[in-house]
């Protein structure tokens, strides 16, 4: 097996999860849980591919994906912020809506080819042994964007004024409200931003990492894995990035397991019985479950909680606050 290639490709596919998970972290930090990431990613993947295909300009496609994801998330925002609907149900219906929209509007795109995000090699850094070829050589530009997102989001959340307000709104909206922070506006904004990230993540699949439109198989559960990753990451962008890359690597690793005749000197069962591949394909989903169990028990041990107001609609009391 080619370990360099496994890690390289892991980083590349992990970028999708990273972008989606960071978007969801921003949303959840404001107290809104949006389970519709899968739907928003599908719409983003469709919009990105469709616009890139029709205009021949992949950057326009990327913009369209971001806008599409963001717009869709506003439906969720309206329903849960103003109508105070249950956030779980609304997130689910957003998944349906996104899937439906993507399938209807993406009709006829299957099998087409569209321009893709260009790749680049970073000079000097790519010369580092092992790390260079894995992380800095011949990756598409979104992968490098992912590298930037981790520290930037962390800095934004923890070290800036808007980040301070974001955390306050997610932890104690009543307190933020009395100090003049607009709860509704903040929550709309970050739900929208989370949607934009999800749309971008979708486009990262369809016009960069695995180019093409394969109807709802394009995203195939990665949106849900991203949501799980947020819990696993304890709402921390660094851990989300780490988790995303780890998932990517393991995913590629399980695919490559089928290749060699011998595995650790023994006959490779996946080579001789191709049907066992279905168990390999289960790996990301099983891993997600394991990561959730591990992540939530670790959170309990260290007493790290979700944002205190996550999933709770905010409403000024009719009498008193």
């Amino acid at each position: 097996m080619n370990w360099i290639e496994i890690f390289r490709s892991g980083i590349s596919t992990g970028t999708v999860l990273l972008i989606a998970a960071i978007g969801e972290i921003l949303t959840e930090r404001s107290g809104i849980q949006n389970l519709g990431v899968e739907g928003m990613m599908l719409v983003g993947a469709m919009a990105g591919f469709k616009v890139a295909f029709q205009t021949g300009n992949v950057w326009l496609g990327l913009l369209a994906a971001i806008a599409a994801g963001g717009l869709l998330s506003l439906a969720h925002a309206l329903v849960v912020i103003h109508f105070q609907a249950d956030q779980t149900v609304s997130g689910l219906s957003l998944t349906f809506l996104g899937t439906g929209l993507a399938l209807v509007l993406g009709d006829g795109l299957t099998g087409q080819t569209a321009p893709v995000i260009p790749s680049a090699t970073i000079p000097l850094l790519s010369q580092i042994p092992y790390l260079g070829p894995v992380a800095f050589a011949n990756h598409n530009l979104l992968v490098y964007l992912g590298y930037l997102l981790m520290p930037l989001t962390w800095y934004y959340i923890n070290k800036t004024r808007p980040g301070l307000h974001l955390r306050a709104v997610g932890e104690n909206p009543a307190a933020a409200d009395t100090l003049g922070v607009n709860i509704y506006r903040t929550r709309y904004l970050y739900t929208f931003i989370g949607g934009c990230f999800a749309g971008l993540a979708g486009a990262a699949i369809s016009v960069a990492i695995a180019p093409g439109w394969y109807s709802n198989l394009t995203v195939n559960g990665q949106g849900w894995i991203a949501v799980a990753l947020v819990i696993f990451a304890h709402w921390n962008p660094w851990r989300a990035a780490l988790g995303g890359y780890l998932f990517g690597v393991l995913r590629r690793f399980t695919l490559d397991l089928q290749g060699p005749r011998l595995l650790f000197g023994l006959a490779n069962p996946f080579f001789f019985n191709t049907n066992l591949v279905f168990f390999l394909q289960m790996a990301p989903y099983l891993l997600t479950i394991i990561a959730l169990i591990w992540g939530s028990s670790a959170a309990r041990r260290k007493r790290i909680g979700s944002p205190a107001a996550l999933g709770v609609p905010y409403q000024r009391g009719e009498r008193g606050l």
Partner: protein
Amino acid sequence: MTFKETPDAVPAVEMQDITLRFPGVLANDHVNFTMYPGEIHALLGENGAGKSTLMNVLTGLYKPQSGEIRIHGKKVSFNSPKDAIANGIGMVHQHFMLVENQTVTENILIGLDTPRFALNLKKYDQEVSDLADQFGIHIDPTAKIWQLSVGEQQRVEILKILYRGADILIMDEPTAVLAPQEADELIATLKGMAAQGKAIAFISHKLAEVKQVADKLTVLRRGRVTAERMDLHDFTRESLASLMVGREVIFNLHKCDQDPGREVLRLEDVSALNNKNLPALRNVDLALHEGEILGIAGVAGNGQSELVEVITGLRPCTGNIWLEGKNIANKPPAFSISQGLAHIPEDRIGVGSAPNLSLTSNIIMKRYDQEPISHNWQLDYVAADTLAGGLKDEYDIQAPSVQTQARKLSGGNLQKLILARELSSTPRLIVAMQPTRGLDVGAIESVQQLLLRQREQGCAILLVSEDLDELLALSDRIAVMYEGHVVGTICSADFDITKIGLMMTGTLPQDLPPEVPELKSPAPGSVSDFDSVLDHVKDFEQIEQASPAGQPVVIPEEEIPPSEEPSRGGSSPSAQDLNLSEKERVLRKVLGENYNKGDEA
């Protein structure tokens, strides 16, 4: 008092003719409120009198239907809290508005425009600590809120307002959550700030405290002003009370003398952790007998909630809890319920009821499994409705029907529903936590009467309350808790507020001044300082000399049977004389924050 009103001074706040109506409630009815710079102005009133509403108008949370507000002579109209902040108005809410996992400085910076993007926390930490020094407030700006004591958190709230340059401060029942020493410190801080020219509105319903802290006074009753901008020395406690409630009366509870029967509940060496996994109960031993009310006294957060939760099976613990000879420690709640345990929880809405379910569904919560409501796997809703209808009449629960959702009941009626459910099952042991908190005075009386009736019927009652008057009036014995220990237990014959007050601050019974009452269960490991005890005693003596004697406790007129109407300021003719006046003054001085703690809701 230091404040002197000069004729040409411009009022810091002038609220005129403020009217605000909520659906079904006239919260403020043509209210006037005026306050000058440099004064501490008490806003006095019962629960629900409209004090907090008026102040929320001033902080821009509510818009009044009519009336106008002038700040420093300038007419203003607030659309949001931001406008009020810009006009130098800040409020410290009764429930702190702090973000637990952020630092002091971060909490202070929320909502400000000043760090434009990057938070340079080091620089702002310095600013915060400079500001704190200016007003003599001690705080570590880099500490996270959850690491701070309640008193420290309150200081953060005050700093939050001062940092915004506020010169008008509103304190909503600020001493309600504080230990006595912390309250003294707060009052000193407030006086210091007034001396620097701040105008401070001090919301309270504690008469004694108001006399100690305030220069001027406005009293509200049922949304109307009954005394506007009066000098405090014009008032006696009686006249204040009558302004607050309408007329003055005395608590008039019949508590018959009876000997406790055999033991019902025994706690042996019970320890437990709180929600933050810190020790909350430490080696508690307690015993409770038939026909006995054991009061649990203590400043909030000294293990009372955890004590109730371990007895009712809602929290794991170590040690043994014997109920009628069976160990119920760490048994599921269903087991202790089947052994005759009734629980009147502190949180009526969050724990004691299912808000969206009907009165019937709430009534049968603990007996859906018993005849005649239960038939094999089925639940007989007709029988349940009949039962609920009967209890609704018996306990006088005001609701359109038994199908009414619990959330539509008023606080008093919801508590009656809970009492109906818990008491109608002929319990052996009742664990009641803050059973009268936040209720209006009439409801308080009927809840207390119900508990006393259960006592007469031989039920054992564990009564946890932060209202010492209530404990003194109802209990046969009082156990005092401090930091998870039971510091000591006192029998009713030896009730002495001074000593209970000292024990509530952690003084061991053996360290108390002479004439120590009979004590049980000394708490292990608790240390106290004899000098501080002496200081306290000195304080009490000064207060005794300074205050007039003979104030009655007030309850509304409709609760008093005409035949037993007591004379003003005199003692009650009932079996047990509860003339608290002497004790009460000291009590309210030392433990004022625990007197009648209630939510303005």
